[in-house]
Each structure stands twice: as C-alpha cells, then as structure tokens.
C-alpha cells in the first residue's frame, strides 16, 4: 500500500508518503504562511526528493474533519484534485482520530483537543494501549464536558492539540485524574500519523474505508453561521 497523505485541517500544513512499512517522507510546516500557498509546493518537493511516480500511489489519505473550515477545504480540494487526476480513491480519516494516533501505544488515555473557538473544542477520548479503541468519538463540546467524562473514566490522560493552551486553567480546576501534555513534536496534526492510520484502516476494513475523490466531502461537525441563525429564527417563531 502506497499512500500520499494530505493534512491541512488545523495550524499545520503537512504531507507524507507511506510506502508499505516505510514512511518515505513527512513534511510539516506550522507558520503564518497560508496552507493554500504551502501545501502543493511541499507535495511537489516530496515528489522530487523521492523521485516519486504518482501513478504508483494506491490512495490519497486526507483528514476528513473537523477542523478549520477553510483549512479542511484546502486539504479536501487538493486531495480530490489528486484523486481525480490519478483516478485513485481517498481514505478519509477523522481528524481527531488522526491526531490521537500520534500517541499510539501509550498506557494513558489520549484526549486530543482542537481549538474549535466559541468556547469549544473538537475532541474525543481514546484508549490506544493495545489497539485503536475510540471511547468517545470526535465531536464539538465545551472542555468542561470533556473533564467530566475523563473524571468518570478515572484513568490518567494525555492531552494534545492546539486546544490545550486555551484550556490549561480549566484543566487545573476541573480534572480529578492525573494528566500530562504531549511534547511539542507530538502535539499537532501529523501527516505521518494520518498516513499510518489510513493504512491501518485499509488493513482492517479493506475497500470499505475508500471513498471516491468525487464523493468525498469534509465533516465539519458544525453548520455555517447563516444556517444556525436561520434555524434560530425558526425556533423563536415556534416560541
């Protein structure tokens, strides 16, 4: 299985090539430059460094969302374009799953926190001790809800993601379980983790994990503001 992985869901623009057991390339940038300017040049650099024949790829892995709406779409449209040009399928991976996979094998629970603004985080709770077990699947909630669930589970936890720093004080206040923060090299979205998780999905599910490039659409976990407000108006009328 040869996979090109494309990640643009958060603060990092990244790509990777996984060739069977070998992560041939992983290129990651977290900088003020826009993903739309950096992502494809990075992919092109990787191609040249690897003398990569794109036709030899089996699939394109992409973070399926949630994340920054614009970032998700830059990643999605890029993956869709590559998929269309090469006639290759996509392997969408839920963003929070991909982020959790950074800490595969740890004995603590893993809790990625992506800054979702509006006082929420995109998060989930994972037990990665032996396999990839999703205890609470990804969703958008307030950190206080996450803290409550973690306290109920009663196990040590590691946090990671760009939602960590906005919630440091809340962790101190609300958590009754021991917790640690992932080190910097594991604390953001990684295209290598995305590629590896995609390969694992293919191993477990076979073709069921593949989505055609035409049909793929990101998972936002949130409606647009206009749709929300329109919904709100309807609610007011009901009252």
């Amino acid at each position, binding site marked *: 299985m040869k996979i090109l992985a494309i990640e643009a869901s958060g603060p990092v623009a990244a790509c990777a090539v996984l060739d069977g057991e070998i992560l041939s390339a992983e290129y990651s940038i977290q900088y003020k430059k*826009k993903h*739309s*300017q*950096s*992502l*494809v*040049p990075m*992919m*092109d650099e990787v*191609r040249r460094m690897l003398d990569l024949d*794109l036709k030899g790829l089996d699939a394109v892995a992409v973070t399926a969302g949630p994340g920054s*709406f*614009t970032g998700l*779409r*830059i990643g*999605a*449209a*890029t*993956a*869709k*374009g*590559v*998929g*269309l*040009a*090469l006639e290759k399928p996509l392997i969408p991976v839920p963003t929070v799953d991909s982020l959790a996979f950074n800490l595969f094998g740890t004995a603590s629970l893993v809790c990625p926190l992506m800054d979702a603004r509006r006082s929420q985080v995109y998060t989930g709770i994972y037990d990665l001790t032996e396999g990839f077990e999703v205890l609470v699947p990804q969703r958008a909630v307030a950190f206080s809800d996450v803290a409550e669930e973690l306290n109920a589970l009663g196990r040590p936890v590691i946090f990671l993601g760009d939602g960590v720093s906005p919630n440091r004080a809340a962790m101190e206040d609300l958590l009754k379980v021991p917790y640690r923060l992932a080190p910097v090299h594991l604390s953001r979205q990684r295209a290598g983790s995305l590629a590896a998780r995609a390969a694992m999905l293919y191993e477990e599910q076979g073709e069921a994990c593949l989505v055609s*490039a*035409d049909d793929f*659409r*990101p998972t*936002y976990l949130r409606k*647009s*503001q*206009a*749709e929300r407000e*329109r919904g709100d108006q309807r609610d007011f009328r009901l009252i």
Partner: protein
Amino acid sequence: MKDITILAIESSCDETAAAVVVNGRQVLSNVISSQIDIHTLYGGVVPEIASRKHTERINQVIRQALEGAGKDLKDMDAIGVTYGPGLVGPLLIGVSEAKALSFAAGIPLIGVHHIEGHICANYIAAPELEPPFVCLVVSGGHTHLVLVRDYGSYEILGRTQDDAAGEAFDKVAREIGLGYPGGPKIDRVSREGDPEAIRFPRGKASGSRYDFSFSGMKSAVLNYLNTAKMKGQEVSVPDVAASFQAAVVDVLVSHAEWAMEEYGLDRFALAGGVASNSALRAAMADACQRHGAAFYCPPPVLCTDNAAMIGAAAYYDYIGGIRSGFDLNAVPNLRLGER
C-alpha cells in the same frame, strides 16, 4: 500552429463551473452548477455555504466538462483557474483543485483574473472581435469600464465607488418584494412598468468622470418607498422597477458613450451577469449605433459566471507565456492588470 486546449475552472462566487476551450475561442464544453436555489433562502450568497457546495461538486463538474468535450485530462495543454477577485472561501476551492490537478497530471497552471474572463467571453461569442475596444463589465460584484488595449492589456477607465450595479439591483429587488436574484426579476417586472413614472437621480461619482456610484440611486428608491408608505399611497412595483432600471441603464450608457467619444474606438462590448439585462442590451445597442460602433454582447450563458470565459482568458495568458506556480493563492481583491 498546434491547437491549445485548456481546462478552465471557476468558483469565485456561487457557480461551480468547468469548461474545455480550444484556442481561446472554441468552446467544447461549458458546465455550470448553480447554487442559486440554496442562496435564495438567505436572500444572497452565503460564502461558507457556497464554499461547502463547491467542495461537494467540483470533481463532478470537471469530469462532466472533460466528458462533454470528449477529452481526457492528459489532452489538456494547461489548466486555467480564477484566482480573484471574488469570495475567498469559494475561490480557494477552484484554486486548490486546479493546483492539485496541475501537480498530479503535470499540466501547466494559469491563474486567471475573473473580470478578464468576463471580458474574454466576448472573444468566444464574436470570433472576429479583436482589441482594441471598450468593455463595460457589470455584474453582482463588479462595475468596470475598461479600455482593452490588447490581449491581456487593460486600462480601467472607471469603476464603482460603492455598490456594484448588480448589487443595487439585488437590494432594490429585495425592498420591493421581488426577492433574490434581483437582476432578472427587475428585468422581467420592468416590462410591465413605465420607466419614466418616477425620476430617480442618476448617481454621480466624485472621482473620475468614468467612475460610478449606485448607492445614492438605491437610497432614492428606498426613500420613495418609505414616503409612499407614510402617506399611505400605493406603490406600483413595475413602475418602481422600471424607473430604477432606467436610471441604472442611463448612467451605464452615458459613461460608455463618453468613452467611445474620447477614445474614438469603433468597437464596444458588454460583459458580466448584468449584461443579460434586456433594457441595458437594447440601450447600449442604440448608443453604439449612434456612435457608429459595432456592438458586442455575449449570450446569457457566457455573461453569467462560467468557466468557458476563464478558458478564453487563460489561452491569451498561455500564449503570452504566463504560468502560475503551485503557490498560487486566492486573491479576493485582485485588481485588473495585477499579477
């Protein structure tokens, strides 16, 4: 010379479009997937929703364009894509997709200016048309009077200082209860109204005499409606629509006539979504006749946002040696003549 075949992509607003164009003039396919039904619910284009819809549909639209042309991606000499001006979210979908196609298929990439595309729609509609000529670009987002000196060489004579003409149409249509999109609806209702029933002011911009201002005209309509309401008078929607439309058309045509006089060019072209307006077309055709100028106006399918026009513009960029890098970004405020 070998034929140059271009796949063009346009997603600057609420139309997801792709086309295959040969030598800038021959359209093999022109696919437009409109989102207008969704945005009508909100009374205008919602950028976030438009961006989501573009993402969902773009591959199918491109595939349809290639199939409709009977071509494969590998037959393309270049990929042209609108990179501005427009809504940044929607623009980014086309730009990201085009860059990925260019990267994966090894085909040169050309970033195209949306307004240049509208102007170049005239090359498709009129194979004999060549620069220099004067072009009035009027749409929901743009009102530009442009001197087209040569292929890819433009001088902006005037632009709107506030609302675009199409935007004013939308706002007035909303006020008189016609809804979105305003342009076609006002056009239709106006046929039953008297364009001289109400004398709305012909807005005058403060800058260059070629500049436009439509917000005053729009306010005059709102004032008229409010006054009538307070006095309990009935308002004739067709008369208001026709009178407002006449005021807009008057301003557009008079500016165009000044340009024809000053630059002495015997070719004049309309472009952009509002170029489909029947009153504007008729008045501009008359004006051109008075000035002995040939009048060009693309059919409605090439006036609305479409990718064929982007393919036409990309062709002239292509033969001019212009290529874009993989770092091409969406530029929402891109100015005409800028790169």
